[in-house]
């Protein structure tokens, strides 16, 4: 139930994200989710894409610094307290979260989590009957 997330190092320069989006778009690769983490002179763009191997190839050919990280995608009902419940489980299991990002649509919400121990996190969430989204399903959303 682990999902491969693509990370790209980008300098804070006009048009860098545009170029990445174009490259992926032209190759027919879809983005399901993304987030940007920024510092004063560079940012890290994190993406969940429909064809990660192809995306890596295209970006490496263009000399981008890319890396792949395992994350989990948690399904939550889109209602108050749902996330708190999930977070509680993670925290009680002694798992630390490096970063997370989320998107919601209608009744459902999806939270992408990068914990320090990704296997353990997935196991704990499943043991507590929470739903993890598989990569193949995430791309269909």
């Amino acid at each position: 139930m682990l999902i491969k997330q693509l990370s790209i190092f980008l300098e804070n320069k006009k048009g860098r994200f545009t170029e990445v989006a174009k490259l992926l778009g032209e190759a027919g690769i879809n983005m399901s989710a993304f987030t940007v983490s920024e510092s004063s002179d560079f940012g890290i763009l994190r993406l969940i894409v429909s064809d990660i191997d192809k995306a890596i190839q295209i970006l490496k050919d263009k000399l981008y610094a890319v890396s792949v990280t395992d994350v989990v995608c948690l399904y939550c009902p889109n209602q108050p307290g749902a996330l708190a419940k999930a977070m509680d489980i993670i925290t009680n299991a002694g798992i630390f979260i490096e970063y997370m990002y989320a998107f919601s649509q209608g009744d459902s919400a999806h939270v992408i989590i990068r914990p320090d121990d990704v296997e353990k996190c997935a196991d704990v969430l499943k043991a507590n009957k929470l739903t993890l989204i598989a990569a193949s399903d995430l791309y269909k959303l």
Partner: protein
Amino acid sequence: MIWNETIECMDREEMRKLQSIRLKRVVEHAYHNTPFYRGKMQEMGLTPGDVESIDDITKLPFTVKQDLRDNYPFGLMAVPMSEIVRLHASSGTTGKPIVVGYTRKDLSIWSETVARCLYAAGVTRNDTVQVSYGYGLFTGGLGLHSGVENIGGTVIPMSSGNTQKQIQLMHDFGAKVLACTPSYALYLGETIKESGIPREEFKLKIGIFGAEPWTDNMRKEIEESLGIKAYDIYGLTEVIGPGVGCECACQQGTHLWEDHFLPEIINPDTLQPVEPGEPGELVFTTLTKEGMPMIRYRTRDLTSLHYEKCGCGRTAVRMDRILGRSDDMLIIRGVNVFPSQVESVILEMPEFEPHYLIVVDRVNNTDTFQIQVEVRPEFYSDEMGKILALKKKITAQMQSVIGIQPEIKIVEPRSIERSMGKAKHVIDNRKLV
């Protein structure tokens, strides 16, 4: 291997005698045939007769780069133009270029000194040498070229640029020796790696690199990436071009061919000579050049000279690595900064590529000091914290070596320009009012 044992291993006292005879002759030649030198000597009340031996060299006036610009193009020639068989010029970044002229004899001296360099680095007539210095007005390409022909080796006159073709011919022609700038050697190594051709398919064994200052760390980097032994060759257009000196197998300094080019080290502030072994600015007097003799030419290169006999058997003086150029030196917030210091830090940190760019500016009357670096692909992280930690680490390291804190900017892979010739390491945008 020694090309000219009589000279290269000459007893030091004998060498001094030879140098004294030649110095007298070149001073007379310059005095009588170049109004520029005659004028300068007359101003100081000197005549050629005042120079009896090389100890008298300190009486003579210095020559600086600006003198060559002021006398552009042919004002410093000491022979009629009918005697000049070749011209070279340095790319002047500001103003007029520096022009030098060679007589037929000057060219033969040049190919003699380059031959000594090649032998010192272990190159023989059985070797194929890829000359990837620029051919043309720049002295690098043709200078190395004639030396290789002189020893009877095979030249591939590649010139610089067209990196893919460089690699293809190096591979197909089985080049054993590569001659180019150290920064281009690094770039070639990088490109060979990317090309996917196994390194064992190359015959490359020896690198002869010069035309820009480089460090021992950079040497290691080049040797590892190309699988070769790398030698420093030294030279400058004003004196003759590449081939003023070269390292031998001992690599205990660069041997200078002082029967043709008499070196001195002076304190750049007081202009007085320093003790042997002490650092200072390198000054050359050409002892045999006819076309355009140079009397006490200030190179701006900072180094020191060692006169003890070398393990290779040569008595020829050894010059330390160039510490930097006195005019390359940046003064940032009152601190002297040499690009070579920045380079040494970068090369010691495996997380970074061996390329950098220093950008200096002045904002609100304060100097800004930025160093752009690239992280090696395997060290890029998905976590902001790790990249920021790398940045902190290199900042601290730079500060401890340089003395002031730079702003480190991590840039995307391959965004620092790879150079085909002399690498551009510094952009100084300060406008001094």
